[in-house]
């Protein structure tokens, strides 16, 4: 089911000379982002890599209108975030963004089903409108039989899948995921990755922050951050090489 998320013109995300500084001790401010220019097209699948503290989460929060640039401009779906009020930013998040947090951020008192439906409740959707969609998503992430469990009764991988389902409840055109497999074992990580790849296959723009090179290798483009700047980006490859060209098992 490929949905057309591309009716609007222009890129999904655009950073124009974006800076984000945090007030530091005394006069020194930390430059979490230090002049980032990047454009992410609609329907692209992009990884953001870089050492701890290089600004990956900061970049993703700005891309999701969870945070505002100190200077420069972030455009989401062509909308300049700096020109929006807090309420307008919340509306923009509801319309355009699904966010998967590094630490799941599920509400501990709510069941998986209630957590998945929460963004829809906050967006003032009628419960009758969304309950079918919630069940569909729980099924998609393989947790139909865990719907009534609370986060404390779920494994890390299951919680992260609930978080992915929650990010998709309002059917956003852009999905942003911060280390979605960071705390998971290989099999649970694969399951979450497959969900994100499916989001991309369905036509969404997907940006995933990861330190896992295997995940980066499954995306179309990798952006490397270093000290708040883009240190490098890889170009789309011309063609793939056969196994014999990259692996040599012969012995003398």
């Amino acid at each position: 089911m490929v949905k057309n998320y591309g009716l609007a013109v222009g890129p999904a995300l655009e950073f124009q000379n974006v800076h984000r500084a945090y007030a530091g001790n005394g006069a020194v401010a930390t430059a979490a982002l230090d002049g980032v220019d990047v454009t992410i097209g609609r329907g692209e699948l992009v990884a953001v890599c870089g050492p701890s503290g290089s600004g990956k989460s900061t970049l993703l929060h700005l891309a999701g209108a969870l945070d505002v640039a100190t200077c420069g401009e972030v455009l989401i779906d062509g909308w300049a975030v700096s020109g929006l009020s807090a309420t307008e930013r919340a509306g923009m998040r509801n319309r355009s963004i699904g966010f998967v947090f590094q630490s799941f951020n599920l509400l501990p008192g709510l069941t998986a089903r209630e957590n998945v439906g929460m963004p829809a409740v906050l967006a003032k959707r009628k419960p009758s409108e969304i309950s079918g969609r919630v069940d569909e998503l729980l099924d998609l992430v393989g947790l139909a039989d865990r719907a009534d469990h609370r986060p404390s009764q779920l494994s890390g991988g299951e919680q992260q899948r609930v978080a992915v389902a929650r990010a998709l409840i309002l059917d956003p055109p852009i999905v942003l995921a911060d280390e979605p497999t960071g705390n998971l074992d290989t099999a649970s990580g694969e399951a979450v990755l497959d969900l994100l790849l499916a989001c991309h296959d369905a036509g969404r723009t997907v940006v995933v922050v990861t330190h896992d090179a295997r995940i980066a290798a499954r995306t179309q483009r990798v952006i490397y951050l270093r000290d708040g700047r883009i240190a490098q980006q890889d170009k789309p490859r011309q063609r793939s090489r056969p196994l014999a060209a990259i692996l040599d098992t012969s012995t003398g």
Partner: protein
Amino acid sequence: MLRYVLLGLLDAEPRYGYELKAVFEQFLGGTWPLNIGQIYTSLAHLEEEGLVRSQVVPQGSAPDRKVYEVTAKGRKALSAWTSTITDEPVRLRDELFLKVSVLSLKNGPATRELIHQQRIAILSRLRDLAELQDLPENHPATELLLEAAMLRTEADLKWLDAVEARLKDGGSDG
């Protein structure tokens, strides 16, 4: 080492020369190029040592085929090889390690540039391997090789990260 791989394949099933070559290639995903001459030379040596024996099988109108099978002595040699624990020294003979090590003597912008370019190149290899892993027709042994190749490629990337972090700590070029 080739002889033991051939013994192992023949132990799984007796084969004639061309068939053995095809199976060998499929087994290792073509990552060990061999010509038929090398196969026949190895088979001749193995037969001389009594590790395999051959039998001529008539093919009607087509030329006769020599089918090779493993002898009891061959099976013993194979099991002696497979049961010996491998403890080779770590091999870091490839060019990248030497290049980076030489550049690190000066720790200038050239080192950082090499690390950046090399990271892209290694990621591209990882992309190739990930695509190959998705192919449905891989031999199970090839799957194991792919897994090893991916883990080692990831290790190369981590090594570049580590080198970069060290250079940054002690760097003279800011």
